[in-house]
């Protein structure tokens, strides 16, 4: 039996209270986009739609008994997903809404660490809703707001009409500083094109990197592109010409306070697998608690295929993605998003893995 064919995609929606999660959820449940969603919420609350597939679930964090502090999963999700998957014909995808204060890591890790969940579902993307007006305040008083952005594959920058253009640019720069890889969508009333947040394949090693023009572009500010609500360009290419977005002013990131998460972007030549794998394993074990997300494309010497990898804390996954194209520069790139990362040491030890 093929597991991958029947795996149901799961989108995780994070964001502070008042950021617009309920508005977005209501849109996903009511608009016609050809997909039926089962939605796991913490409280039925304001969702005005009566739907058998809205499931209320108490957030239940399980620490695993393996001595690893960051190996946490959501027990309620394991149970709910198991129940839903016994009648899989009812829906095409699952959406998990987290509470405002939730740490997104246990949610994401559930889809990698629990064998039952993993065999039936796959994590599609983590989407963070951010309130443009209140984000600076949120970042001051909570670590969670920062974690949610750091973890996101897409950030919906909502209520962008409530701030001035300068404030909006600053908020965007802050989001970029925390997570250079996430795509940012400016919206009002959570009016993001649903195709930009659903069915993204952000955790799919084969898909994610080709779909995402920003992936690994942390150190290339000229690629720092923010999608507005009416942005209709083709995200599958690095074609950023002819757009009127004001994305050329990111060269100098203004001093941003209240941020403890940063990204480290590494770049090197062809790697020796005998050195690289022990190195990345050691890094993930020693720095795991500090690493929120990790993504990379590695060129191994004498390997005709690109090797892609991603990680959440100590969980790391890698696979061959596709053959290197003719004329494609065979280089290795790796981005860490996390806290207290020693960039200098990471860079030196990474470079030492080169063939």
């Amino acid at each position, binding site marked *: 039996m093929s597991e991958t064919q029947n795996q149901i995609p799961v989108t995780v929606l994070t964001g502070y209270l008042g950021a617009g999660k309920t508005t977005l959820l209501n849109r996903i449940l009511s608009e016609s986009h050809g997909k039926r969603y089962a939605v796991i919420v913490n409280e039925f609350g304001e969702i005005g739609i009566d739907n058998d597939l809205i*499931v209320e679930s108490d957030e239940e964090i399980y620490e695993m008994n393996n001595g690893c502090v960051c190996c946490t999963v959501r027990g309620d999700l394991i*149970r709910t997903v198991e129940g839903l998957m016994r009648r899989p014909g009812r829906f095409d995808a699952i959406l998990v809404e987290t509470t405002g204060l939730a740490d997104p890591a246990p949610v994401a890790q559930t889809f990698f660490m629990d064998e039952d969940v993993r065999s039936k579902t796959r994590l599609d993307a983590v989407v963070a809703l951010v309130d443009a007006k209140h984000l600076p305040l949120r970042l001051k008083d909570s670590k969670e707001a920062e974690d949610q952005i750091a973890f996101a594959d897409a950030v919906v920058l909502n209520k962008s009409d409530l701030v001035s253009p300068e404030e909006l640019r600053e908020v965007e720069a802050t989001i970029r500083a925390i997570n250079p890889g996430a795509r940012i969508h400016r919206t009002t009333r959570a009016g993001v094109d649903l195709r930009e947040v659903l069915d993204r394949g952000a955790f799919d090693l084969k898909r994610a990197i080709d779909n995402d023009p920003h992936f690994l572009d942390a150190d290339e500010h000229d690629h720092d592109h923010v999608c507005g609500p009416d942005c209709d360009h083709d995200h599958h290419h690095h074609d950023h010409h002819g757009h009127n977005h004001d994305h050329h002013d990111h060269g100098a990131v203004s001093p941003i306070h209240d941020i403890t998460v940063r990204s480290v972007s590494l770049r090197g030549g062809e790697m020796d697998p005998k050195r690289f794998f022990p190195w990345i394993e050691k890094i993930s074990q020693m720095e795991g608690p500090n690493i929120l997300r990790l993504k990379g494309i590695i060129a191994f010497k004498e390997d005709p295929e690109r090797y892609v990898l991603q990680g959440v804390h100590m969980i790391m996954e890698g696979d061959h993605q596709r053959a290197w194209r003719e004329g494609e520069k065979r280089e290795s790139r790796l981005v860490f998003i996390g806290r207290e990362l020693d960039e200098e040491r990471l860079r030196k030890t990474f470079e030492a893995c080169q063939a």
Partner: protein
Amino acid sequence: MPTVAPLDLDGHCVATAFIGEVPYFALADGSVHRLDHGHKTSQANDGLLCAFYDAGSDRLLTGGEDGKVFSIGAGGETAVVAEAGRKWITSVAAGPQGALAYAAGRSAWVVLPGGKVKEFQHPRTAEGLAFAPKGLRLGVARYNGATLHFPATESKPVELEWAGAHTGIIFSPDGNFVVTTMQENALHGWKLADGKHMRMTGYPAKVKSLSWSVKGKWLASSGAPAAIVWPFQSKDGPMGKAPLELGTRGNSMVTCVACHPTEEIVAIGYNDGMVLAARLADAKEVLLRRPGKGAITAMTWDRSDRRLAFGSEAGDCGVIDISA
């Protein structure tokens, strides 16, 4: 030669039971099928999540996505016996004197003999429920252990602590031991007299099915390429003793176990739908059913000890007659 009477249904079989002499199959969509002079159907929950056969009242209790507890009795008659609002009911259990319990979220409710309902709230989710065989004592599996309530009295609950997430719970037939299934690939047990711990580890997968052999001398479990059967004959349970491994298959996992009611024989269901019977004394095996469409999820012996009802996650269910 065992003969198989197949019943091909459409959906995940959550539970099997014999009510009277009739085999019942409860599916995840809430349809309850029975083979009673032909295939007949009745409807319980809209979304059936859990089930428990109440031997005292000869009925099947089911809980579901609709927040209701149904009872299914002879003739397929269904009735709502409890409701808990919009939350999923994820565990049900029946106890002595007609008591029943159900859980949703962090609450567990007990319907006492006489009909009074008592709610017990917990700091974490009430994951699994079981009544002790005697007295009125409810065990609740929870994060970091289990809680034992005494619903008929006002006495304080007994807390059994062990780090980790406990997802299911069962009492031994003599009431001396409590065993939980865990989120990690292990069972945990407590000897109730002194609270002594019993760690039962080494499984390659989560344990989802437990069954006591006749008189509770052995506890059979799923979660490995063999049925793992722990010895409980001595007063300290299986501590320091190796379990039996029965029906070992290199390429398949055991997903369901059901001990025979009068003989030391265990029916073993696998993830490919195969069913074997194995004798505890000499590990001798008999094939009861060839592999089918999906993993075996439920098995029940009848009271005359010759028929085994089975169900799978793919809906290919049936009754095996071993007397022929």
